[in-house]
Every structure is written in structure tokens, then in C-alpha cells.
């Protein structure tokens, strides 16, 4: 009898593991009320961890056995993960959630056959200025990269090169993922000339730094800037540089070997119903690539112009190793 009990316990342990879901997503990117609702409806226990950079996520997956069942990389990192065999093929196109995905986000270069991913949110990377401190125009990247006196020493950039190098490339007219070292030298020269005017390179706690006026201009994302302006009445404005904004799209994917694949799929479907997607949209404040309940959606071009760019948007690409080395070189030389 004891042996049978023991055997059932052993058998039961994987079954118990089915009652959990470990998510690793951008910090504060998923509405807590949806997590609570999902837990109540499904009986699945959800644990959430947050990251602040795609690089952190990629490194964790490459190190193996991350223990996560669901993660949310941006498109150019999703492509690497898929190519490197780091993702579980979940037949994303056969999920209910896929039907909700906007036509224009299906079959994209980062997941051409829609095997791996269901998009969660998209938006842009640009910069935000504090209007109490800076009154000038914000119609060009020149404002940030070649600042006038009012902004000198009052600029903050992110602590990773990814989108910053992209923005510098937009400004200079250098193509993304350039393998031309002469072109990348120009990117380096631009950033090096800007450096004396940069107060900090940091990706944490941006809301307080720009909202509170610690710096007057901050490299940032559209929705975060919008929420800080709308919810906290911070005197800030998200710039629409004529050279364009850097685009990103985050998707749900399941890491290879995840323990709770079915629960991850359930969560993806759950997040993609119009009702829940709208709650998520209202919470996260970035554009939704899935169908929404428009009557309930909080943000419109009138009250959230940040989410509806009037300038071209260029999505980050997956760079070749040679191009990526040049990006790293720019960054290391900048901060050497």
C-alpha cells in the first residue's frame, strides 16, 4: 500500500506542476487584474518576473533551463530565439488567439509561418522631454543627439545600445544592422559627441527621472511616456522626430522545454479575447496587435497621440554577427 501511495505521489508531482505558469515579461507589462482573473478562472498559479532589456531575456534562455513557460521578446530577438532553437513550436496559428491578431502582424519576418508567437503589444522607441525644463521644438533627433544649451547635461539614455544605435542610425540615414564600419564610425562619432551632455545611461526608474525633472530629455518608449503624462500629470512630451521612430513588437513565446506549455497556451488565448485584451491595453498603454473592444478602449489619437505616430516607424532588425559586433564596438568605445 505504501508503495502504491509513493508511486501515486511520484506520478502526481508532474500533474501538480501543471497547476503553475511561470511568466518572464517586461517589467509591469501585464495587467495584475488579468493575472488574478486568470488564476481564479483556471486554477493555475501564476508567477511573474520582470526584465528591462531583451538582452537579459536572451541570455537567460541561452543559459538553458530558465524555468519559464512564457516570455515576451521583441521581434528582432524573437527571430534569434527561433533560429537558435530556443523556442517551443506551439502551432501558434492554430490557437484561438491567432484569430484575434490583426492581419498586418501575421506572417511577419520574425515568425513567417506563425509557429511560435502571438503578438502582445507594439510601439515605438523615441525620446521624451520635460516641458518645464525645455520649451524648444522636438521635431528631430537632432534635439537629443546634438543638444542645444538648455538640454546639455540634462539628457539620459538607456543602458543598452539596442534601440539607441537604431535611433542614431535613423538620424544619420545609416541603415539598421549596417556592416559598413565607416558608417558605424559615424554613429560612434555622433554618440561620442553627445556623451559630454549625457547625465546618465540607465534603463531603470525612468518615470521618476524624466517626470520629476532630474533630466530634461530621456530616451524612452511611447506608451510609458503617455501613461506618465496622462496618469501622473507629468509635464512631458513624447517627440515625433521627422527622421522616424524605432519600432518594436513584443510577442508571447514559449521557451524550449518549458514545463507548462499547455498553461502557457491557455494564458495566451486568455489574454487575446477582446475583453481581456482591452483591459491589458488600458493598463499597459502600448498599442494592441489584437482585436479590442473599442467601446472600452481608453486611448485614442486625441488623448494619447504618443501611440499614433505621425512620422515613419522603422522596426528593429535582427543584425548579423558582423553588424552586431559593430554595434557592441560603438557602445564599448563610447563607455570605455
Amino acid at each position: 500500500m505504501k508503495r502504491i501511495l509513493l508511486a501515486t505521489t511520484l506520478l502526481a508531482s508532474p500533474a501538480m506542476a501543471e497547476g503553475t505558469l511561470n511568466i518572464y515579461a517586461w517589467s509591469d507589462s501585464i495587467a495584475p487584474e488579468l493575472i488574478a482573473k486568470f488564476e481564479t478562472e483556471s486554477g493555475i498559479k501564476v508567477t511573474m518576473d520582470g526584465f528591462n532589456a531583451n538582452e537579459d531575456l536572451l541570455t537567460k534562455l541561452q543559459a538553458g533551463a530558465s524555468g519559464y513557460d512564457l516570455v515576451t521578446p521583441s521581434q528582432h530577438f524573437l527571430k534569434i530565439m527561433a533560429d537558435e532553437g530556443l523556442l517551443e513550436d506551439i502551432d501558434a496559428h492554430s490557437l484561438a488567439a491567432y484569430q484575434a491578431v490583426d492581419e498586418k502582424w501575421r506572417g511577419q519576418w520574425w515568425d513567417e509561418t506563425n509557429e511560435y508567437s502571438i503578438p502582445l503589444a507594439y510601439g515605438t522607441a523615441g525620446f521624451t522631454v520635460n516641458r518645464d525644463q525645455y520649451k524648444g521644438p522636438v521635431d528631430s533627433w537632432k534635439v537629443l543627439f546634438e543638444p542645444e544649451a538648455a538640454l546639455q547635461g540634462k539628457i539620459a539614455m538607456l543602458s543598452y545600445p539596442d534601440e539607441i544605435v537604431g535611433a542614431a542610425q535613423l538620424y544619420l540615414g545609416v541603415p539598421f544592422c549596417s556592416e559598413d564600419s565607416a558608417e558605424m564610425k559615424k554613429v560612434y562619432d555622433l554618440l561620442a559627441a553627445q556623451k559630454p551632455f549625457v547625465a546618465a545611461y540607465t534603463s531603470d526608474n525612468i518615470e521618476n527621472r524624466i517626470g520629476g525633472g532630474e533630466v530634461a530629455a530621456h530616451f524612452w518608449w511611447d506608451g510609458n511616456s503617455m501613461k506618465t503624462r496622462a496618469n501622473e500629470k507629468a509635464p512631458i512630451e513624447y517627440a515625433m522626430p521627422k527622421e522616424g521612430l524605432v519600432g518594436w513588437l513584443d510577442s508571447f513565446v514559449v521557451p524550449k522545454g518549458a514545463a507548462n506549455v499547455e498553461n502557457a497556451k491557455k494564458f495566451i488565448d486568455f489574454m487575446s479575447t477582446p475583453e481581456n485584451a482591452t483591459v491589458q491595453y488600458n493598463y499597459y498603454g502600448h498599442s494592441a496587435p489584437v482585436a479590442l473592444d473599442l467601446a472600452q478602449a481608453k486611448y485614442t489619437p486625441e488623448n494619447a497621440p504618443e501611440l499614433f505616430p505621425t512620422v515613419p516607424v522603422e522596426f528593429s532588425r535582427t543584425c548579423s554577427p558582423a553588424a552586431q559586433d559593430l554595434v557592441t564596438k560603438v557602445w564599448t568605445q563610447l563607455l570605455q
Partner: protein
Amino acid sequence: MKPTDFRIWGLAPAWVIMALTLVVPIGIVILVSFASRGAYGGFDWGFSPASYAQILFEEDWDGNLAFTPQYLSIIGRTLWLAGLTTAICAALALPAAYTIAQAGGRAKAVLIYLVTLPFWVSMIVRVYAWIIILGNDGVLEKTLRSLGLVTDIDSLLFTNGAMLTGLVYSYIPLMILPVFASIEKLDPALIEASHDLYGSRFTTARRVILPLAMPGLMAGAILVFVPCLGAVLEPILLGGGKAMLMGNLIQTQFGGGRNWPFGAAIAVVLMVLVMIFLMVNALRARPEVPHD
């Protein structure tokens, strides 16, 4: 069972744990540092010293392989900052520890408790506290202004001074405690003897107290210097991330740079530096081991 058997088997668990948690991971880091890089991060097993060569020689913008001082300057900056932090910690810890040692029973216990108190709070929270203190219109700026000491100051945050303050603050308890342990054992009769022999206060401090506090200072120096070499938080959050240190450099290579072998090679260099420091320390400390 022979006593030697017991000694071998009794220590076996410790050796196994040491091997699994210390030797094996370090071995893996060393192996990775000689591996060849994967195209998008990760690595392929192999043997190539290329990653170590890259620390000194790298292609310049024109594609020529040339000597590059950038990584050496990062390593040098890291050593300098860790050394400076250790020196400041030692200078502040000595009088602090002496004061604590001189205090009466109850007060002594309270003071020791206060020194250890910050460890109850997460490191990140303590570093963020400094952001609030040093930030624009922060506690320090407001205080200085209301005292009329300054009228207009540049931001105190995101400076080397802010970074150094953060590092000293974070690690000084690790210096105070061992120094206190040495000074507490100091026999007051020795100080009296020094005065009886016409030793001035300064001479007493230099010739009696300092040598007897030396083992504590040495232990504290290790405890402060070594973690400072790998500091990542303070340079980014307080220093503004404008000048890389080895910790940030390693992070960049594993993250954005997608060059794990090079990141591992720098980690090995960092480790070797730490070991050299520890060995020099151990050799210097040896004659000072008490003989009683």
C-alpha cells in the same frame, strides 16, 4: 576506523560541495573563455586564445588589427575605484571601530547592531535611497540650500563622487566589523605603556594601535576590495553608467555583445586579479600571525 579515515570521510561532504559549487563553475568559465563564440550568443566548444588576444588587440574602424587600450583602461579604472573605496573605508572604519571598542557594554552592543542594520535592507533599496538623497532637489541639496551653504549647485547624482559614496556606504560595515574585532582585543595597558614611555597620542596611534589593528584592516580590505571589483549597481544607478567597469563590461559582452567567450575571458582576468590580491595579502599577513 583509523583517525585518518575519519578525517578523510568526515571532510568529504565539504570537498564535494566545494568541488561542485566552486571548482566546477570556475572550470566552466575558463573553458568558455577558450571556446569560440556562437553567432547570436552562446558558444561552441573549442580551444582558441582569441578572446584573451581581444583584450589587447582589436580591429579598429578601418579593419586593421591594432593595440586597443580600451579594455585595459576599464580594468585599470576598476582597480583604481576598488582601491580608493577600500582606502576610504579603512580611513573611516579605524576611528569608528575604535570608538565602538571604547564604548561601554550596552552602548557597544547597540553600536554594533547599528553597523549591521543596513544589511537587513536589500542592496538595491539602499542604493535607491542614495538616489533620493543625492538627486536634483533631493534631501542633501535641500538641506544645503536651507542652511544657506549653497544657492545653485549642479546635480550631485550621476557623478564619480556619487558612485564612490555609494560604494563606501555599501561596503564600510565589512571593514568596521573586522577592525573592531582586532581593536577590541587590544590590551589598554599597551596604550598606557606607550604613554608612560612618552609616546605622544599620534605615536601611540601609529606605533601601537595601528599595527595591532592591522589583521582586521587586512581582512576588511579583502572583504571590501573584492566585491568592489565586481560592482555593477552603484556605477549604473549612482555613477550614471557613463564609464564602464569590469562588471558592466562582462554584462555587456554576455548581453548586447553576444560574445560569451570574451565575457568569460574578462571574468577570468577579474578572477586572476582577485587571486593575486588575496595571495599577496596572505603572504604579507603570514609573519603577523600571533604565536601564542
